[in-house]
């Protein structure tokens, strides 16, 4: 480990340029967070319309609108983070297909097209069958749209903390958590207790799985690579420790507890608090995970 090497050689940097600042900051956190809601709500809409077609038909329009708004938020934050934002069209006219950024931009564009088609089907044509057909394709595309950011993180070879396939699992779980939380807030009391219970179970299990992955990284990550060990120091007593734990508690622990209490008591009003907590916590957790590898000096 690095600190043992330092103790042995007593090596100290005495003259160098200043460390680079954080390059991907809160704008990229907003990007990932908004995308989780945008694709997650589509997963949940598909699930509810398949399992409870009669009781949940009303969510068709609000769900697609939420997805359209959040995916555009995601695109907005993607573009404003570019240092040359008015050149974003280069991605389409000079595409480099080995880049997850390129693949993601193309897929997200297709995803927006399908969402607009769904909105047209339900709002203008009032055609539920067409909406449901388009939803099938949209769900399929939502999977790689959710995952491409994990691909991008995996291609970021400088940041050892971001590993495949863990990041893929985290991205899908984040989409399920964000989608369920948004659906719980969207459906409100119009959902029956059975549906609320189903949503609660998805939220609770996704939160548990994501929490296990974070804890596994925290405990076993340092054994993988020296860089991972050094990065995790920032959340093991370092400057991001409190923020990391606030994120973990709000995103995963509070929702797990509230879901458990709700199911036990068969009373589901607490699920809305769980949903808000999950959405806030998810932003914080993602932000910490995004920022800490960037604090490490690369050279």
């Amino acid at each position: 480990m690095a600190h043992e090497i330092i103790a042995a050689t007593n090596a100290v940097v005495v003259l160098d340029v200043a460390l680079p600042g954080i390059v991907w900051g809160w704008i990229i956190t907003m990007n990932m967070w908004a995308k989780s809601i945008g694709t997650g709500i589509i997963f949940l809409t598909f699930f509810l319309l398949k399992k409870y077609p009669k009781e949940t038909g009303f969510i068709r329009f609000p769900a697609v609108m939420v997805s359209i708004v959040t995916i555009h938020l995601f695109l907005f934050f993607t573009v404003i983070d570019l240092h040359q934002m008015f050149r974003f069209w280069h991605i389409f006219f000079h595409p480099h297909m080995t880049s997850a950024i390129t693949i993601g931009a193309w897929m997200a564009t297709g995803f927006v097209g399908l969402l607009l088609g769904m909105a047209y089907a339900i709002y203008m044509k009032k055609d539920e069958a067409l909406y449901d057909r388009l939803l099938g394709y949209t769900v399929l595309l939502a999977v790689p749209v959710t995952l491409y950011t994990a691909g991008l993180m995996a291609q970021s070879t400088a940041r050892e903390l971001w590993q495949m396939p863990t990041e893929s699992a985290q991205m899908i779980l984040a989409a399920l958590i964000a989608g369920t939380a948004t659906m719980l807030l969207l459906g409100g009391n119009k959902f029956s207790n059975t549906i609320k219970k189903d949503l609660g179970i998805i939220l609770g299990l996704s939160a548990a799985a994501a929490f296990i992955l974070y804890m596994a990284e925290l405990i076993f990550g340092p054994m993988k690579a020296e860089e991972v060990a050094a990065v995790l120091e920032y959340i093991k007593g370092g400057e991001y420790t409190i923020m990391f734990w606030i994120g973990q508690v709000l995103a995963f622990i509070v929702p797990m507890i509230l879901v458990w209490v709700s199911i036990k008591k068969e009373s589901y009003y607490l699920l809305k608090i769980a949903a808000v907590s999950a959405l806030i916590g998810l932003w914080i957790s993602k932000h910490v995970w995004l920022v800490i590898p960037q604090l490490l000096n690369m050279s």
Partner: protein
Amino acid sequence: MQLGFLVDLHLCMGCKGCEIACKVENEVPLSTWRLRVKYVDVGAFPETKRTFTPLRCNHCANAPCERICPVSALHYLENGIVNIDKDRCIGCAGCIMACPYGAIYIDPQTQTADKCTYCAHRVASSMMPSCVVACPVEANIFGDLDDPMSNISKYIQQHQGNVQVRKPEKGTEPHHYYVGGGNVTLNPLASFRAEGHSLFNNLTHLPVGGHH
């Protein structure tokens, strides 16, 4: 042709001539660096030693920066140089996340990525890179790795067993070698780095693209 660099750390005396020559040649703006020389002190008094390590882009054969660039602004030249087209770059900073050597920065004037190009413009005119010319002790050796008779190839042959690259475990296959390097000089995690131990004692972090 495969152009490469080699720095003999036994020879480097930390004069930073290469750093300044690079800045001037490539008009590298304030607070940004294509090449820098890092000083690391080793040992405890009176058994101390100061090490000097010039650090620049490695022009990797398997370059993660080139792979992640969505618009091919980072691209290979036929001579193996990983070059950058600043007019094409959209400033997404993906390359900064991908380069394991921190070799890329956002140029605050153009708001695009920039890095050492092995002075591709000079090489195209059969000139040596600016930093090579400036080095008073010829610690920087530049040439064609595919040519066994080039200076760099001969140097590598003569120093077999003592030729290193940075972070070989990353699989980037750098075309930039060091002779006489070690953990302290080549592994950034092997030395303690206090904030403020920089050329600018009141500036601990570089502004990204000119923004604080």
